[in-house]
């Protein structure tokens, strides 16, 4: 008797592609549905002016969400970004109104301050083993408190410095400068996450910290560094907001951290670490901005926007954990046992 050996066939490449990119494809689909829905429901929605307005409003969220994607990929979280934005916002306004330094140096100093704050929190998380949730919850309170204390709760006006105000109000070729900054940071984040050794370390640490350490990767340093990224990104966002409004306030960016985390999670990044894309985060941030803008254009109460945004986040996480795990397959559901 002869024995027949056959090789197992390769599965369809399209099915592989779909299951590999299910997260990004689903948020992309949802984003398109939102855009179409609001275009039909509100005539002012699909106009160049309004679209640029959405992008400008989404810019600070997107900048921080890119960094937050790195943090959440390491299975961490940074709840303090809103307070960091407020602190940078306030300190920048105080420094500029006091005329301590020329404005470009103030910008650099704020970026350095953001990095320092992030590194400080990252040290507690990575080297002292305190859960990121606790460290950054404390940071949320402490940093907002500093901002309030420094400003005594007042809004600090920024003097007329055309160079600095350009950061928030300027345009290059009709595109608002904050949009250019945020897109550039998103592109940079994409390249770093998927193409560099550092990005590989971030994913490996989030996927299996002990395996990364055993493979000789500096796992702790990597974890500390991602909080530095959110610190720097929060500084950028704080400067964008300060330059746009022409003032610094300790009450800036209240609830900002929730919008940022919502954008990242909506984009399919797993809270358990190891899995996430910047493209998904970009689509998540834009979806949240589009929903907020669209509902206002439909003359729906702004209070209702919060309810809708929260509901969408809940549904997104539900899909994320229930459907896109091992039991999900394209092309027909598996029978329940």
């Amino acid at each position, binding site marked *: 008797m002869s024995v027949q050996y056959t090789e197992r066939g390769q599965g369809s490449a399209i099915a592989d592609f779909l299951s590999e990119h299910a997260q990004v494809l689903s948020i992309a689909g949802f984003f398109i549905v939102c855009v179409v829905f609001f275009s039909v429901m509100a005539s002012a929605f699909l106009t160049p002016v309004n679209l640029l307005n959405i992008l400008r409003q989404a810019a600070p969220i997107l900048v921080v969400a890119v960094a937050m994607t790195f943090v959440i990929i390491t299975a961490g979280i940074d709840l303090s970004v809103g307070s960091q934005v407020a602190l940078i916002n306030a300190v920048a306004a105080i420094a500029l109104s006091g005329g301590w330094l020329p404005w470009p140096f103030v910008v650099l100093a704020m970026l350095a301050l953001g990095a320092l704050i992030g590194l400080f929190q990252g040290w507690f998380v990575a080297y002292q083993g305190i859960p990121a949730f606790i460290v950054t919850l404390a940071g949320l309170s402490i940093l907002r408190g500093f901002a309030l204390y420094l400003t005594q709760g007042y809004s600090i006006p920024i003097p007329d410095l055309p160079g600095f105000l350009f950061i928030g109000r300027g345009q290059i070729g009709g595109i608002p400068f904050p949009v250019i900054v945020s897109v550039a940071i998103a592109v940079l984040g994409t390249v770093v996450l998927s*193409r560099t*050794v550092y990005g*590989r370390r971030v994913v490996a640490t*989030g996927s*299996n910290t002990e*395996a990364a*350490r055993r*493979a*000789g*990767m500096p796992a702790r340093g990597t974890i500390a560094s991602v909080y530095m990224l959110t610190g720097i990104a929060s500084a950028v966002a704080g400067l964008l907001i300060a330059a746009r409004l022409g003032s610094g306030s300790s009450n800036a960016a209240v609830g900002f951290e929730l919008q940022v985390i919502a954008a990242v999670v909506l984009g399919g990044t797993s809270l358990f670490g190891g899995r996430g894309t910047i493209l998904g985060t970009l689509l998540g941030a834009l979806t949240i901005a589009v929903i907020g803008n669209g509902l206002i254009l439909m003359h729906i109460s702004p209070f209702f926007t919060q309810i809708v945004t929260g509901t969408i986040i809940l549904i997104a996480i539900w899909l994320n954990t229930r459907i896109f795990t091992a039991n999900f397959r394209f092309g027909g559901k598996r029978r329940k046992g």
Partner: protein
Amino acid sequence: MSTQSQHGAIAGPGGVMPSGSESAPGMTPRISLRGIRMSFGSIEALRGVDLDVYPGECVGLIGDNAAGKSTLTKIISGTYVPDAGTIAVDGEEVRFANPADARARHIEMVFQDLSLCDHIDVMGNLFLGREVARWSFLDRATMKTRARAMLDDLDIRIPRLNARVEKLSGGQRQAIAIARAASFDPRVLIMDEPTSALAVAEVEAVLRLINTLKARGVAVILITHRLQDLFEVCDRIAVMYEGTKVAERAIAKTSLEDLVKLIVGKGEAI
């Protein structure tokens, strides 16, 4: 101490001299452990262990569960830092503060839990911690070519190198962990239960691999519960019991029955 065999004598408090030590005289051991102690809280995982492994030699490390085999190998690979004792590589005393130090000395280990990153693809896991990079950008083309060569070398069949490891079978995952440890010119290779999830043909491939590496002068330490495998690749067997090395036997001078007796603490009878 009931584990004391007829050849042995108590060397110190808690330390037991192994019986029937067989070492090649005149050669410097590739790796040499002396008086290794390690405690986890109140539990003394290792109570003064000596072990020498020579180049081109395979030492089988056997013992009951919780005998200290994995702890000992994790100390050699730098994963744990011992409380006391010395490690020497090629006669030079070393101190491993973390796994990167051991890796820099070409000490590689296949961990029992495999230590793979599920969300990273096959070639990413093969090159984990030593990515090929130009200006810190990953050189995926080079890694892909070399990953394919690494797997072909070991007769490992994995169709898609860019599939994430979480999608692979237990055997394929184990094969990747072995390929990763064996392919970067190791000088000491430690394998903790490398064949537990493997099929017959793959076990044969791993045993062949061990013999190939031995021929190249690699010192191999093999932990396994499949005692019959030891007789195919090992030169010596070290038996652990309750955190000490109770016996060391040349493979030619022992038998499966003797090893079983040594493992379960009935070594006095032989």
